[in-house]
């Protein structure tokens, strides 16, 4: 009971009341969006608007206001990270993975990006009537393998079955908790001018893999998703120079560009990227060229961005490269004082441009 008190204090001690003026007036401009659009979940500006103006406003508390990949809670002498994510990927099975392994890796990574060591997961299944039992078994086994591989236990769960036609085969929600070490202080707000941006490997692999098998857009590649649990990679960084790791994020939906925009906005700093060193595979680049996609906005499921103190950057880069999931890690940019809240990129030919938050998802272009 004593342990719980500080949490209550943290959660309730908000000085300002939530602004739900006019009783329960909806904060999203209804004239513009009378219904929810797909782009509200696309990871871009509309998602951000929904989260910040509706969810954060309604659930207002200082922990949520951090807008991290997960919540960081002080419980007695311990700090815990708590994170949840729902997985609605289609198709359910794709090269190199499936919705089950993704549901484990994604949440393990969200916990790891808080600087925590993941210890346990919950799993909620929303299953559509008619899903082949064999498919469900494949997904569950895949989750079990992924959890075992990541050293976390699935300790509780929930099952619901919905009418045929009311789900896309299966949706999975996982929630994870982890323990944060003493010297670790990871927060998007800690990015400060002079810091260096490390990226753990080649970008846009997961998004393009899924796109290549999506109905109506199939194209041949040898690509497999990069879905992987990153907690041992982040642990290695924190072990090496924990105090110098300021921000950790996995650039999933919305890609590297959206993630860095969020960090820049939250920390009130600018971020300057270099196009040249950003690792990207030939096949991914080729597919992006054909579809008219900017790979900076395409999803990753096994990559980590670390914003670290400049003096520790080389050492931490070597640490990343020494890990199997960080072999192609690179320094891709820096945090600057100029243009706070914005991300700029220096192109290969030396030009400078803004890397903005996208409005919604990227759509394949005409020609």
């Amino acid at each position, binding site marked *: 009971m004593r342990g719980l008190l500080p949490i209550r204090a943290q959660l309730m001690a908000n000085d300002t009341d939530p602004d739900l003026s006019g009783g329960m007036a909806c904060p999203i401009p209804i004239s513009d969006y009378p219904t929810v659009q797909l782009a509200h979940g696309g990871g871009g500006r509309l998602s951000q608007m929904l989260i910040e103006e509706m969810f954060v406003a309604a659930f207002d508390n200082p922990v949520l206001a951090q807008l991290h990949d997960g919540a960081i809670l002080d419980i007695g002498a311990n700090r815990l990270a708590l994170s949840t994510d729902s997985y609605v990927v289609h198709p359910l099975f794709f090269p190199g993975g499936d919705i089950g392994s993704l549901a484990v890796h994604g949440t393990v990574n969200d916990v790891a990006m808080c600087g925590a060591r993941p210890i346990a997961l919950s799993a909620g299944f929303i299953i559509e009537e008619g899903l082949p039992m064999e498919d469900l078994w494949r997904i569950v086994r895949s989750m079990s393998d992924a959890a075992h591989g990541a050293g976390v236990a699935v300790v509780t769960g929930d099952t619901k079955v919905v009418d045929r036609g009311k789900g896309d085969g299966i949706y999975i929600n996982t929630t994870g908790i982890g323990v944060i070490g003493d010297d670790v202080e990871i927060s998007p707000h800690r990015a400060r001018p002079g810091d260096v941006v490390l990226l753990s490997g080649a970008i846009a692999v997961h998004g393009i893999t899924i796109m290549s098998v999506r109905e*109506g857009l199939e194209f041949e590649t040898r690509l497999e998703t990069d879905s992987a649990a990153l907690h041992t990679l982040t642990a290695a960084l924190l072990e090496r120079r924990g105090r110098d790791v300021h921000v950790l994020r996995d650039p999933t939906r919305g890609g590297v560009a959206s993630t860095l925009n969020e960090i820049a906005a939250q920390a009130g700093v600018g971020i300057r990227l270099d196009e040249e060193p950003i690792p990207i595979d030939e096949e991914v680049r080729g597919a992006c060229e054909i579809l008219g996609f900017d790979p900076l906005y395409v999803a990753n499921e096994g990559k980590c961005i670390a914003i670290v103190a400049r003096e520790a950057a080389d050492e931490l880069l070597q640490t990343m490269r020494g890990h199997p999931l960080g072999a192609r890690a690179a320094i891709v940019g820096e945090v600057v004082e100029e243009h706070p809240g914005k991300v700029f990129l220096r192109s290969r*030919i030396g030009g*400078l441009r803004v890397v*903005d938050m996208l409005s919604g998802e990227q759509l394949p*272009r*005409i020609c």
Partner: protein
Amino acid sequence: MRYVDEYRGGEDAGRLLGAIRRTVTKPWVIMEICGGQTHTLIKAGIDRMLPEEITLVHGPGCPVCVTPMRLIDQAIAIARRPEVIFTSFGDMLRVPGSNADLLKVKSEGGDVRIVYSPLDAVKIAHANPGRQVVFFAVGFETTAPANAMAVWRAERAGVENFSVLCSHVLVPPAMEAILGSPDHRVQGFLAAGHVCTVMGYWQYEPIADRHRIPVIVTGFEPLDLIQGTYMAIAALEEGRHGVENQYSRSVTREGNTAAQQLMTEVFETADREWRGIGVIPGSGYRLRESFTAFDASLRFDVADIEATESEECIAGLIMQGIERPSACPAFGTRCTPEKPLGAPMVSSEGACAAYYQYGRS
């Protein structure tokens, strides 16, 4: 990556930019025709690397942008019908009609699907004989061959539940219209390399001669655009006019004659309305009489739909190179990608989208 990295190298860019700086002696206004080129220029930051004597203005070559709103409203009306599977290239979905866009129709339950090729739409029609499958056939000469092929195949295979809502436009009449406008300030063109890959460049020779301007057929990579600009500046400084081919790795004078033949078989030239600009004589394609059975505007009786354009949107002036997106009072305030007044703010080839996305104000 081969065929890409060679055209994005920083050293070569530096050399070509140096050559431009050494060549230019007075102010020049050059228009790049294609919205894909506009995006490369802004994305790679080339506009900021050129000497200040050179002004680049952005042309009408964004097929999404010039599709008249009436057509968008027709598409929306068709897509809302329960028997219809409406197929389209991705970037048409966000283009605002009078009251909605196709993404909104989709969110309301309309069966709107993104395809990458019009032939995929024919496949969908074949697989769904009980439904009407409509493809939104927009684009310049670049997409016309594939769209012609879709109609041609559907006709040969007897896929009767397939039709196209056609809004094809052509570059040369648009260039003539721009040069004929009293407000125009264009002194040289970077012609759209991919249009010329299909059509060749012989059509531009009489335009270049008549108006005594240089027309440089130009590719889409950063180095293509810097080199195309250099060729245009060199011609202007030397007082030369005529057509030159920067994009020779893809374009010949005659173009792709097999594609042209197919287009001629399926389409005929017609007057076409350009959004924000107006009707330009002989500037588009419509289906030939032998293929009108595949005309969705006739099949679904939507020809009478009229549209109301935003009075505030200056897209027409922007696409004629008369104004820049940043000159629009609504830019970035009342017109954003989330709430666009006109198509150039949401198309992947739109000039306003390029300015907004890559931070030009």
